[in-house]
């Protein structure tokens, strides 16, 4: 597999997002190719989640361009992006609490990129949610809600999946299983943008990382190179150096 040779699926160019004077994103540019897993790393408040929020249509960018499959997508509403094949999970899972687990996934399957009902059961099975299919999503524990977020995103048939801190709070065995799954999604051609604090998880999952600090990219390359980079070490020292 040599994803470098393919055309980028997602291209972010000089992206800017300001919150009343605070520059959350200050000229961020990167590309993700089909089947590639790109890690978005950086200290708290460096702009990782803001970046995902802009790409998935929650925020309008104040400058720059987001291109998906060669078409500009910045400013498109989330439901249009979902139908184009851009989807995400949320840092704090946001299921539809009063709907059953199956209905949660069904909504996404009906409105997403591809239509189909058979897939819902397969998804529930593969994310170990099948036993709870008829229970309200509110009854799930937080790890299961994270999996439901993932199932819902996958049910829309995404080509780009942004995963916002999926690993936080999961046990070691759960982490390993999630890592395997993310790799399997990439293997099927989905591009992944993974925001994560757990460096072990990032190292296991990603092909490449982009390190953000204060809304700017300070490093791009593999995680192994990143931890030898002077500026990256500076930014992380004293905060997550121990990891």
């Amino acid at each position, binding site marked *: 597999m040599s994803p470098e040779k393919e055309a980028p699926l997602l291209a972010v160019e000089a992206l800017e997002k300001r919150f009343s004077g605070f520059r959350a994103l200050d000229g961020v540019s990167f590309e993700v190719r089909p089947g590639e897993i790109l890690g978005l790393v950086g200290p708290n408040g460096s702009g990782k989640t803001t970046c995902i929020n802009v790409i998935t249509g929650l925020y309008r960018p104040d400058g720059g361009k987001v291109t998906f499959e060669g078409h500009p997508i910045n400013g498109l509403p989330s*439901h249009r992006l979902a139908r184009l094949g851009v989807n995400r999970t*949320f840092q704090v899972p946001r*299921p*539809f609490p009063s*709907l059953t687990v199956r209905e*949660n996934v069904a*909504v996404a399957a009906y409105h997403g*990129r591809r239509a189909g009902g058979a897939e819902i059961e397969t998804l529930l099975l593969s994310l170990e949610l099948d036993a709870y299919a008829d229970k309200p999503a509110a009854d799930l524990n937080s790890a299961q809600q994270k999996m439901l977020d993932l199932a819902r995103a996958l049910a829309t048939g995404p080509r780009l999946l942004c995963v916002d801190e999926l690993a936080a709070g999961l046990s070691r065995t759960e982490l390993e299983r999630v890592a395997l799954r993310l790799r399997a999604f990439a293997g099927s051609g989905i591009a992944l943008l993974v925001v994560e604090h757990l460096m072990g998880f990032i190292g296991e999952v990603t092909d490449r990382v982009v390190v953000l600090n204060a809304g700017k990219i300070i490093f791009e390359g593999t995680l192994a190179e990143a931890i030898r980079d002077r500026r990256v070490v500076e930014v992380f020292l004293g905060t997550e150096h121990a990891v």
Partner: protein
Amino acid sequence: MLRGVRDSLVVVVPLTAAAALLPFAYSNELLLFNFIVFLVLAQGVNVIYGFTGYLPFGYVGFFGTGAYGFSLAVIHLHLFPLVALGLGAAAAVLLALLLTPLFRLSGAYFAIASFAAAFAVYEVVSNPHLDAITKGPYGISLSQIYNPQLSYGVAVVILAVTLGVTVYLKNSRFGLSLRSIRDDSLSAAMAGVNVVRARTLAWLISALIAGLIGGVFAWYVSVFYPETVFGAEFSVFAIVFALFGGVATVSGPVLGVIFLYGIYNVIGISAPQYFQLIYGLLIMGLVLFLPGGVVPLLRRWGIDVP
């Protein structure tokens, strides 16, 4: 699909049949008519509140607009009542379209703003300077088209259609998208649901229902004042009935109307002070112990209620 058929057989058919046949056995037709009006209004509240989470405190605005739209079409355009009914309903839908910016608000703010909007319509309609058009505060008289049998029959049809709409919403993909929006509009958008369009559609359907029954109300009573058809108690009753039974269900609002409006008619008129006491206690008990209404409770007991 199967559930839709079952819900229709359990709720829509018997209720419609009862509404159509009871006048032959029971002489107080006005009371039966009022039951139909509240059954329809409670389901209308169910459509917008139960399925999208927006509480329309000013729901009566659509009812009054339907009543006045109908009456003015009869008075000024001399239209047949059934055609005028269409115009009344169209007026209510138009008002709903004008009010769509209210969806920028949420929770109590939306409830209060919709109440203010209904009040504004009432103030315009009852303005003495508009006497020539709306008859101002002096009220409407439609003696020329008075026809209790036909208007009652049309009300029964509207009841059947409205119940059909809730059965559809409860069992369809569209209803599922609406419920997903109610739970989390951001997640719904990310799941691919066109939130603005779905919510607007539900709002317009809800206004259409109130506009239709408002028009029929005007036709049936044929003499009324602005405060009759814009009275806040229509909103309050419809909302309380719907909440009591349980929203986002088919049978909840029906149970609410039959039980609470039943109590109202049994003791509300003969012993108003006891009625108010019992009503107050019931509503407090509901809010404290059964915020989801009666139907979720029945379901928890294992009774499969539509």
